[in-house]
C-alpha cells in the first residue's frame, strides 16, 4: 500500500466538501482535508476556524493548531469566535468536521468522560467547539480511529449530538438542523440510514467488512452495495504530502 490510512481518510474527507460550501474546519486531519478540497474540486469553499479565522485560500504552511501564524496571514477575516459560531447557529455553515474518543451507532460523540461523569475512568479534554459544530452545522463529518472500544453501542456521555436515540430525536430536543453525514474511520466510511443509525458504506482497500465489524462495538449494518473506499488519487497524495511533508498528521 503506497499511502497511509490517514492519507486515505484525508482524501475521503476532502471529497465530502462541495465547491462553494462553508466548512467549519476541525483540528488535525480536517485541517488537511480542507486544503486538499480547496486545491482539487472545491476551489471556492470557505473555511471557518473557531479561533476566529476565515480562509478562502489554504494556509501557506502546515498547521499544528488552527491559530498558528500561517493560518492568519492572508485570511479573509480575523475575528471573534462567537461571530463565527453565531453564523453557524443561523445556518450559514454547510459542513463541519469533528473527531471523538467514543462514537455510538447514532453518531453521538463523547470527548468528555469515559465511565460515569461523577467518577470517570478517564477525563477527556471536553467539547471545544465540537458540540457546537454537531449541534448547528447543516451536516457533520466525523473522523476517528476505528477501534472496538471507541465504537460503542451507546456513548458514556453525549458531548456532541448525533441522532441521539434515532428517529426524530434531533427535532424533539430542539436542535435546529443537521446531524452526522458520515463517519470516516481508519477502516471505512459509515453513513446513516433514515432512522439515524450508522451503516458501513465502504471499507478501506486494506481491510474487509468482517474486520470492520470486528472492530465495531455494536452489530453494524452493512450497505447492500458496500465496496472498497476509492484510494487517494495521485493528485490528492501529492497535495497531502506537499502540505504535510514530514507526515506529522498523516503518518
Amino acid at each position, binding site marked *: 500500500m503506497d499511502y497511509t490510512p490517514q492519507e486515505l481518510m484525508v482524501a475521503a474527507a476532502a471529497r465530502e466538501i462541495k465547491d462553494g460550501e462553508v466548512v467549519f474546519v476541525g*483540528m488535525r486531519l480536517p485541517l488537511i482535508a480542507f486544503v486538499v478540497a480547496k486545491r482539487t474540486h472545491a476551489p471556492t469553499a470557505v473555511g471557518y*476556524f*473557531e*479561533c*476566529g*479565522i476565515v480562509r478562502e485560500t489554504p494556509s501557506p504552511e502546515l498547521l*499544528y*493548531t*488552527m*491559530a*498558528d*501564524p500561517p*493560518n*492568519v*496571514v492572508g485570511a479573509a477575516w*480575523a*475575528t*471573534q*469566535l*462567537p461571530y463565527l*459560531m453565531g453564523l453557524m*447557529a443561523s445556518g450559514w455553515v454547510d459542513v463541519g468536521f469533528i473527531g471523538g474518543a467514543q462514537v455510538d451507532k447514532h453518531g453521538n460523540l463523547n470527548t*468528555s*468522560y469515559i465511565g460515569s*461523569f461523577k467518577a*470517570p*475512568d*478517564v*477525563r*477527556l*479534554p*471536553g*467539547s*471545544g*467547539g*465540537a*458540540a*457546537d459544530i454537531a*449541534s*448547528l452545522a447543516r451536516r457533520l463529518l466525523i473522523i476517528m480511529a476505528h477501534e472496538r472500544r471507541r465504537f460503542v453501542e451507546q456513548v458514556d*456521555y*453525549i*458531548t*456532541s*449530538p448525533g441522532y*441521539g436515540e434515532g428517529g426524530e*430525536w*434531533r427535532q424533539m*430536543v*430542539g*436542535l*435546529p438542523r443537521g446531524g452526522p453525514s458520515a463517519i470516516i474511520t481508519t477502516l471505512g466510511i459509515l453513513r446513516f440510514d433514515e432512522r439515524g443509525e450508522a451503516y458501513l458504506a465502504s471499507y478501506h482497500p486494506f481491510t474487509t467488512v468482517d474486520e470492520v465489524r470486528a472492530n465495531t462495538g455494536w452489530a453494524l449494518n452493512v450497505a447492500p452495495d458496500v465496496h472498497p473506499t476509492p484510494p487517494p488519487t495521485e493528485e490528492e497524495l501529492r497535495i497531502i504530502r506537499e502540505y504535510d511533508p514530514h507526515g506529522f498528521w498523516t503518518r
Partner: protein
Amino acid sequence: MNKRMTLREAVEQFVPDGASVALGLCLESLIPFAAGHELIRQGRRHLTLIGPISDMLFDQLIGAGCVDCVMAAWVGNVSAGLAHCFRRAVEQGLPHPIEVRDHSNFTMSLALLAAALGAPFIPTRTVLGTDLPNTNPDLIESTNPLTEAGEPIILVRAVQPDVAILHVQRADEEGHAHMWGNLGISVEAALAAKAVIVVAEEVVERDVLLSDPNRIIVPAHKVVAVVEEPGGAHPSPVQGYYGRDHDVYHEYHRRTRTPEGFQAWLEEWVLGVPDRTAYLARLGAERWQRLQRRRSAPSVPVDYGY
C-alpha cells in the same frame, strides 16, 4: 495614568487567592504563559479558571494546585493530546479535587458576552440534547417563552471574571492595547471582566495606539496593569512576533505523565526561574531566535484624517 508594573506586581496586586481568572482567550495563540507561571510561583490558590479551549496552560495551573474550578470548553494539549494534570485532578483528586463546568466554545463565549452586555443569560440552541447541562449548572435547560409550543432552549448564564489576563502585541502604559490575528473570545472576556491585566510584547507610545482606535481591544479605564513581557506567550505564537514552539507541547506531554514528571517539569521551567527573562535564557538564545518572525506582512494603513 501610568499602570506599568512588573508581572510579579500585577499578579500580587490584582489576582488574589480565590479569584476567577479568564486567560488563554485566543485559543492556541497569545496564551499568557508568563502570567500563568507567575500565578504558580506566587502559590495562588482556589482560583477559578475561565477559557475556551486551553492549550496546556490550564493543565499547568491545575497540576500546581492553584485551581478549585474550571469553566472551559476543552482542557488539553492541542498538538499532543490529553492533559495529564487535568486528568489526575478529575480522576484521582490529585493534587486535590476540582470542579469542572463543561462548556462548549460557543456557550463559553455567550457566557462572557452576556456579562459584557449586562444580560443575565443568553439563550441558544447549541448543545441541546447533550450531557453538558448535566455537568454545568450554568447551562440551564428551559423553553423559549416567545414560542407558543415552548421549544427547548439552553440559557447560558452570564459569567463575569474577576480579572481577564490578555497577552497582546503592543500597548501603552495607560492600558490602550492592540491585539491582532484570531481574537477568540478576548473581546468578550475583557468587556465582561471586572479588571483587565494587559501583558504586552512591547510597550509603545500612546500615539501609536490612538492612531488606530478600531484596533484597541478594551477601554483603558478597565485596565489595571500593563506589563511589558517580551516572549511572555511562549510557547504559544504571537502574530508578527514569534511562532509556536511545538516541541515544548510534546515535551510537556511526555514528561508530565506522572506527578513526579510534572513536578520536575515545574521545577525546571516555572519554580526554578524567577521570571520570564530567566525562562527565555534557559530556553536558549538560539532556540528563541529560531522562532522569531522571518518575514513581514504589514497591514496597509487606513486614514482617520478629515
